[in-house]
């Protein structure tokens, strides 16, 4: 029993060390990306397009829904509690600081993270990685770095988009349900917003983007020989990304409290 636990712990530690090594290598390569690789630029543009542009409609729908519900419910409940201005603070904390980065991260994990793991895993199976090595290209640099930059950039932009739709777009939805002066809404929002809200939202989206990209790439590259490994790795990559983002969220919240 003790031996088995010891072996399991050793295996997990080795896997963790390998993942950290992969992460550090990817970060190092990212710094050299622009000067070294004009051939990877197309992958980067495609990644931003796939992760960012194609997720716009889903993000818009969710952020509008969340924002509208908060405004309608807040307008009904908060005046009863004698503090109607609390609505703006709730909107900022829920949409900008918490749900914006997290919901965007979950959507990107489900759509793009899983796609990255599957694509890279299939490339391993079809020996495309070996083909890269055979022409002197490190596949991690060639394929991993554009995905890291692309997913992180798209994550930051989509988070801004989520916030805009959540805070402004949802006003319009709520306005149809229960009319509400826009000027008053905007003034209240701006008065309650501080720089820490913006920084917190940015840091979270940046960190979540890195987590999703690194985890998805790592699991894709870890596929070894069989096609059956691909779905297994994809499921693991989704789970690890979500858990990683939640842990990072808690750490960032604690640090910026």
């Amino acid at each position, binding site marked *: 029993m003790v031996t088995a636990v010891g072996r399991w712990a050793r295996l997990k530690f080795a896997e963790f060390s390998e993942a950290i090594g992969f992460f550090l290598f990817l970060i190092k390569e990212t710094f050299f990306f622009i000067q070294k690789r004009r*051939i990877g630029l197309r992958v980067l543009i495609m990644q931003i397009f796939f992760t960012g542009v194609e997720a716009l409609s889903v993000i818009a729908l969710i952020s509008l829904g969340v924002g509208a519900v908060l405004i309608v419910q807040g307008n009904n409940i908060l005046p009863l509690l004698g503090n109607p201005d609390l609505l703006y603070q709730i909107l900022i904390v829920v949409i900008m600081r918490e749900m914006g980065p997290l919901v965007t991260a979950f959507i990107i994990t489900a759509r793009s993270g899983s796609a990255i793991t599957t694509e890279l895993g299939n490339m391993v199976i079809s*020996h495309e990685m070996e083909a890269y090595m055979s022409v*002197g290209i490190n596949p991690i640099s060639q394929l991993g770095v554009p995905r890291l930059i692309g997913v992180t950039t798209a994550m930051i932009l989509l988070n801004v988009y989520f916030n805009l739709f959540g805070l402004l777009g949802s006003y319009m939805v709520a306005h149809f349900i229960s009319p509400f002066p826009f000027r008053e809404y905007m003034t209240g929002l701006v008065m309650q917003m501080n720089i820490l809200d913006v920084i917190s939202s940015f840091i979270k989206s940046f960190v979540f983007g890195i987590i999703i990209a690194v985890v998805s790439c790592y699991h894709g590259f870890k596929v070894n020989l069989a096609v059956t490994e691909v779905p297994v790795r994809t499921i693991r990559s989704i789970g690890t990304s979500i858990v990683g983002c939640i842990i990072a969220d808690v750490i960032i919240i604690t640090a910026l409290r």
Partner: protein
Amino acid sequence: MEQVSYIVGRESILTDISHVFRRGRTTIIIGPSGCGKSSLLKVTAGLYPNIEGRVLFEGQDVSRMNEKEYQHMQRRTGFLFQDGALWANMSLYDNLTLPVLVTAPHISRARLDEIVARTVGVMNFTEPLDQRPAALSAGERKIFSFLRAIVTDPEIFFMDEPTTFIDRSKVGLLKEKIRALKEEGKTIVGITHDMDFARELADSYILLSGGRIIAAGSSEEIMDSRDPVVRVFINDFIQN
């Protein structure tokens, strides 16, 4: 290579392999299916970094090479993969030009087009180059993989079953081009089940079984061997 072993999970694919590949010679690896021929070829080409033992390229340990040294080594080699291994997300044009761009990142478009035209001409390849590899048949992909392997005019050519999937009309031309590579003095390391072609090309053989080298030597040494295990191999693979 010195005492090379390659293990995947708990399975030993190659065990204690030591061999010297000579410059300008053609070495053919022979053995039953699943004996580790493709793995040995890829280990030799430096494509599997996680091995035990050492693979030396001109005296330098491949696993200890820095990125530049590794790139420099790979630019001097070309690899024809068994299943083509073309980059599925790129056009055929990009598949062919990427190895050139790695070697010469600032090459002009006109020069690139010239190299592409010359290379596709080698195999009379006439398919449009703006399409993806998925649009090609298995045989065409294999031919294109050959073109990608030779586009940078490498000194060392690795080939994994070069003639499989290719229809008869093209096999003759492909063999002719590989013969030409040999005549140009290229170093060739390959696997083929086409024994007539193997006999024609081989300066030396490696006989592989169960991930171990059973025998290795020049064609004459192997053919004249009185070792009963080698004789069985010759009867089963080389002379059949």
